[in-house]
């Protein structure tokens, strides 16, 4: 076997989906045990959970096997993460934390500003526009027009 053939046959392992399968499997069993451990639990409470856990356990090794590839082509079709994608991915938990801690209005204004700033390649005009429109959506549309009782500020209930 030539050196080229050897490198072509090298196994490439996609670790992230394997990790996902292992974590979900662990959580599934932990969930089943936590339900069974409840002092008032009966067989009926786990009637669906138990077979689903068994099924996940049976499927898991096969799914993990699909994460082992003989060539790089099989894993090259994944979308590439650009700077812009990364910014939005980071923004999602940041916006969530902002909403939970400081309320919707300040998160809309500040989050909108920073997200607009970084996504636009540091253009202040876009950042201000994003911030202003976000604030209008939160305060004017949802807070005012729809009156859904959003916790707008950190001191809101």
């Amino acid at each position: 076997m030539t050196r080229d053939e050897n490198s072509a046959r090298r196994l490439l392992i996609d670790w992230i989906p394997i990790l996902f399968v292992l974590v979900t499997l662990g959580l599934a069993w932990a969930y089943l045990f936590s339900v069974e451990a409840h002092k008032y639990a009966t067989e009926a409470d786990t009637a669906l959970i138990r077979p689903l856990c068994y099924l996940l356990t049976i499927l898991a090794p096969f799914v993990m096997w699909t994460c082992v590839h003989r060539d790089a082509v099989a894993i090259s079709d994944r979308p590439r993460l650009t700077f812009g994608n990364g910014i939005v991915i980071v923004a999602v938990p940041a916006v969530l934390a902002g909403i939970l801690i400081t309320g919707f209005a300040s998160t809309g204004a500040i989050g909108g500003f920073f997200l607009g700033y970084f996504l636009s390649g540091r253009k202040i005009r876009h950042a201000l526009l994003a911030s202003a429109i976000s604030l209008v959506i939160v305060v004017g549309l949802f807070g005012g027009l729809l009156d859904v009782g959003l916790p707008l500020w950190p001191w809101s209930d």
Partner: protein
Amino acid sequence: MPEVTVVTEGFGLLWDWRIPAVILMGLAFGLLVGSVPGLTAALGLAIALPFTLTMDQLPALMLLTAIYTGSLTGGGITAILMNAPGTPGAVVTAIDGYAMTKSGRYNQALGLQICASVIGGFVGYIALFFLVQPLSDFALRFGPAEMLALTILVIVTIGSLDDAHFLRVVYSGVLGMLIATIGTSVTTGIPRGSMGIRALEDGVPAVLSVIGLFAIPELISLGGRSRIVASDDRQKTSVRDVLNGARQGLAFRGTLAQGSFIGVLIGVLPAAGATMASLLSYASARRRAKSNEKFGEGAPRGVVAAESANNATEAGSMAILLAIGIPGGAATAVILGGFILHGLVPGPRLFVDNGPAIYGLIFGNMVQMVIVGVMAVGFASIVAHVVRAPSSVLIPCLLISIGCGAFSLRGQLADVAIIYIFGLIGYFYRSYKFAATSLMIGLFLGARLDAEIVRFAVLYGDNLMGAIMRPIAASLLAIAFLITCASLWGSRSR
């Protein structure tokens, strides 16, 4: 056949000034969302859902379906003018549509697209009118065993659409069903997996999860582009020429009929959706075309075939949603959420309990199909400006809107967390081909199965064969088994 009194009562519900108002608003918003690549019907519906909370049942549902209709039609406009399909279903339209634009025939292409969309959608809803009642009556025979078999079949069918990742898709479906069991047990009332979080005691809200799963990954993907569409193509459309194109579209009667038929049929299949329908219709029209019709180089028949099937899928997916309660895709899942929010539970009992409202909805959708044609002609002239909006402004606004919308549904901050967390899960799923649609089906059907599993155990006990040997359940499981074998064989040979 539908009962005449129920049908006439349903038709009477349309005589309300709010209905045309919400139809116009919904179609305009749908056309806007559909024409913008990166924003899909599901995202538009997710944003609109909180606005329906203060509306009555029929106007609310009409608004949601109008957005769905508008988005399916709008997707084709940017596909033709800029080679930037606004929705996945419009990808096939771009093949011949953009080729026509390059040769200066964009008005004709737009006319053909709009004509085919309107006719495909209209024919689809006529089919829905006649089919939905028998389908619903058939679904009334479904007991727990049939529901279990159907769930297995649906998940396996979704997996079969992507042989290479079949096992990941099935794993996702099972995981979705497991997540759906979280919450207070229906049999003993004990909390299961809610970790003391009050919002989880009623279970993981499927609608919010689905909105997160599909809407947020779209925003993440959009983050990779500075503008929604970078193309500088700015064709000046002429209403008269577009109308002439639409008239020419009427000449392709066979292709329109075939596209509509394929669209309805494929629309019924969960997750298959508009892309597959338009592809099949296009391929079929291409096979039957005369030798002088140059498909791929601007053949009008290609646009008609793709678009008629694209819009007819709406009726197919609505049929399966209304009759059995299975959402075929992300958009219908959000519409299902709208039904539930307004006290309607799609499934076999829907027609028994709410027949007039559903027929009102079907008639309203037929009206929508005609109006969307008129609106699309005007919208085509402004779409070039719309899609040049900077994504750096759009993304923050939509991200915060989704959060506000999540809170407004139940007034709980935990729901905001659920929607954003499922958003990140959705992006992971999209990147690693785990199929968010399969997780979604698991979430919707798992909750129903969990409620019925005790009845299943009481009815059949240890006699599992007794359940499997029921004709409908046995047939569904046999089909699921065959599909599994074919998919595994397909992935093995690949």
